[in-house]
């Protein structure tokens, strides 16, 4: 398969870019932020996303979705990255759908259909400590009657405060660090014992901290197999990582484009600053990094869709690389914009803030480089 978008994917990109660029340019994000919007995203636009088939992009056609794959999800994420449009697409359309696809026939039919209709929002609750370490999950799921009792705390739950359904990783056996013993649960966020705090984040996107105190769930709420949730979780996290990497490609490309434009406009010392060779070389280097990253991310998404055994390594490469490239892009973007880049009035700072969050999200560049080394046995 060529490492390019095919015709359908290109059309999808154009349609996503058309809608997002038109309806949700970065000023849309700025408005939501300044208004301290309660939801943090536009429900109207999510409805449109659902009408355009984006909310159900990954939902099998049998459940009313488009039945598309990781590459297509990446296409949409890249466009979201360009305008930083706040949207439940990642939490619901990518992570939620991917998790629920591992569920029972009943779960799939109930939830996937609703997601495709834009009628259900989900959030994945994984992280507990300061860094993404899914195997270190310590949250307890103790057997209780026919079901389980959940105790523990989750942080960095993306879109947690607007979710209708939480997908929670907890330890039904074993100790933190072990592969076995993890189970995924579907939990009603209004259940007794749940306390949810919306976290105001540096990037003004949505996340929540959630504590679980003796939260009772039935056996039906188990997603996938008890104690064996790790394989499903891995695949959910990997598609999520690929999606976030694609967002970072869009973000990097957008920052870079704005910076190159600025280099061609701003004069100092009687010259356009883009005439200074030191800046030219740095811009050319950054361009190359972005193109190299774009290829690595597309490759990883294609391998996921192929179900290739090399997909996990490719995802580690993609997420690690996208993180360092986005970091470089926003740093160069702010520096080359000079003082103006430091102002809230300019948009460049938004990208820097979002890039930082995307770095941490589902494992930073260090985490994924370490994963690559582990996969390669050294």
């Amino acid at each position, binding site marked *: 398969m060529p490492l390019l978008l095919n015709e359908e994917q290109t059309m999808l990109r154009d349609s996503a870019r058309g809608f997002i660029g038109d309806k949700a340019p970065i000023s849309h994000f700025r408005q939501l932020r300044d208004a301290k919007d309660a939801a943090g995203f536009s429900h109207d636009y999510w409805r449109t996303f659902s009408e355009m088939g984006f909310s159900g992009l990954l939902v099998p056609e049998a459940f009313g979705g488009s039945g598309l794959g990781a590459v297509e999800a990446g296409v949409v994420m890249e466009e979201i990255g360009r305008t930083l449009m706040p949207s439940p697409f990642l939490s619901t359309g990518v992570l939620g759908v991917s998790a629920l696809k591992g569920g029972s026939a009943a779960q799939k039919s109930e939830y996937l259909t609703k997601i495709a209709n834009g009628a259900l929002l989900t959030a994945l609750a994984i992280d507990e400590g300061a860094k993404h370490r899914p195997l270190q999950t310590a949250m307890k799921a103790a057997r209780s009657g026919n079901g389980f009792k959940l105790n523990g705390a989750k942080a960095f739950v993306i879109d947690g405060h607007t979710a209708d359904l939480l997908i929670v990783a907890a330890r039904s056996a074993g100790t933190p660090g072990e592969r076995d013993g993890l189970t995924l649960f579907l939990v009603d966020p209004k259940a007794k014992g749940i306390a949810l705090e919306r976290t*105001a984040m540096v990037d003004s996107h949505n996340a929540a901290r959630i504590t679980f105190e003796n939260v009772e769930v039935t056996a039906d709420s188990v997603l996938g197999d008890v104690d064996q949730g790790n394989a499903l979780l891995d695949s959910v996290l990997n598609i999520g990582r690929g999606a976030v990497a694609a967002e970072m490609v869009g973000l990097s490309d957008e920052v870079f484009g704005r910076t190159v434009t600025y280099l061609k406009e701003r004069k100092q010392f009687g010259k356009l600053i883009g005439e200074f060779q030191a800046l030219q070389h740095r811009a050319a280097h950054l361009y190359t990094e972005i193109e190299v990253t774009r290829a690595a991310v597309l490759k990883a998404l294609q391998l996921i869709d192929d179900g290739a055994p090399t997909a996990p390594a490719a995802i580690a490469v993609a997420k690690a690389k996208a993180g360092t490239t986005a970091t470089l892009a926003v*740093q160069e973007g702010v520096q080359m914009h000079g003082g103006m*880049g430091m102002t809230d009035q300019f948009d460049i700072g938004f990208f820097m803030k979002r890039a*930082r969050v995307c770095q941490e999200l589902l494992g930073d560049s260090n985490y994924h480089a370490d994963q690559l080394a582990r996969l390669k046995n050294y």
Partner: protein
Amino acid sequence: MSDLEQFRSDTRAWLEANCPPEMRKPMSSDEDTFWGGRNAKYSSEPQRVWFERMRDKGWTVPHWPKEYGGGGLDGEQTKILRQEMAAISARLPLVSFGISMLGPALLKYGTDAQKQEHLPKIAAGLIRWCQGYSEPNAGSDLASLQTRAESDGDDYLITGQKIWTSYANYADWIFCLVRTDASGKKHDGISFILFDMASKGVSTKPILLISGKSPFCETFFDNVRVPKSHVLGTVDRGWDVAKYLLQHERAMISGMGERGAGRPLGQIAADSIGADAQGRLDDAMLRGQIASFEVDEAALACAAERAVDLAKAGQAHPAFSSAMKYYGTELNKRRHEILMSSGGIDALEWESQRSHEGARPRAWLRTKANSIEGGTSEVMLGIVAKRILDLPGA
């Protein structure tokens, strides 16, 4: 005991007796800095006590002559005072651009009358100063500034706009670059002038930064009347004063990377991330990055110490402060990238009490200006290439 040893032991004893315990902790917020000025506010009683005691010794400006409210200390004594203050983590009693920037320029270029008028008020924290250099179209290319001062008898009438004026909205006076002659080359015809921010025609507008804070302003001058006697140095030769002052500013900013005495970054990271069985930070990749950073940071601290010693010995290259400004600010940015990575998810919070209102991410974003303000890294490297390396056409 030598005189210096005696001085050290006296100083230590005095500090021990006079520095309130509350003033012996690292500053944790903007409130902890005392800036002085007409509307000076103490954030606490110990802050007031500490300031007044130090002021009375002349130690807000220990190396200035006593006649201007300084401590009259020589270079070695000043270094000892700094060391002894650092040893007990004593805070600076007064922070001001009057001390760090204008003072050295006044001492070198000021008339007796100017020194008498301004220096004691700076030393005593009575007047808070701001700096009017950059303009919207004169950033790195500072000399292309366009704020003009038109002669009107014994006065100038000043009209124009400045930007990136730090705390202009709190300042009492400004030291400012204006164009007194537009006929020649851009570096000529600039004058360095001082005036009261309460003058008619001065207005300021804070600039909201990406950190969510507003330490800088846009500052507007609309026919502000300023006596010609307020020019510092020679009329039309203000660029010399500005350059002299920028060197001091750069030397100061370069110090931001120094933090030898603080808690090791790797331990700060371990607070969030934890340690493995051997006591090593439980993120081997990050640990490596931190260790490499701490090598560079420790080396920079040595270079800063050496720069002072070279200056004392009269062996310093005048442009070396540009190299240090470049290196120190780039390191400080790296430090805060590491702090963000170390804090991970927790360092992404922006408003909670738990995160001290996002102190860590706001500080991180603030550092991004380090390599822009006071001369960009690119300008600093150009100065080194030209003035130290003598590369052609630099």
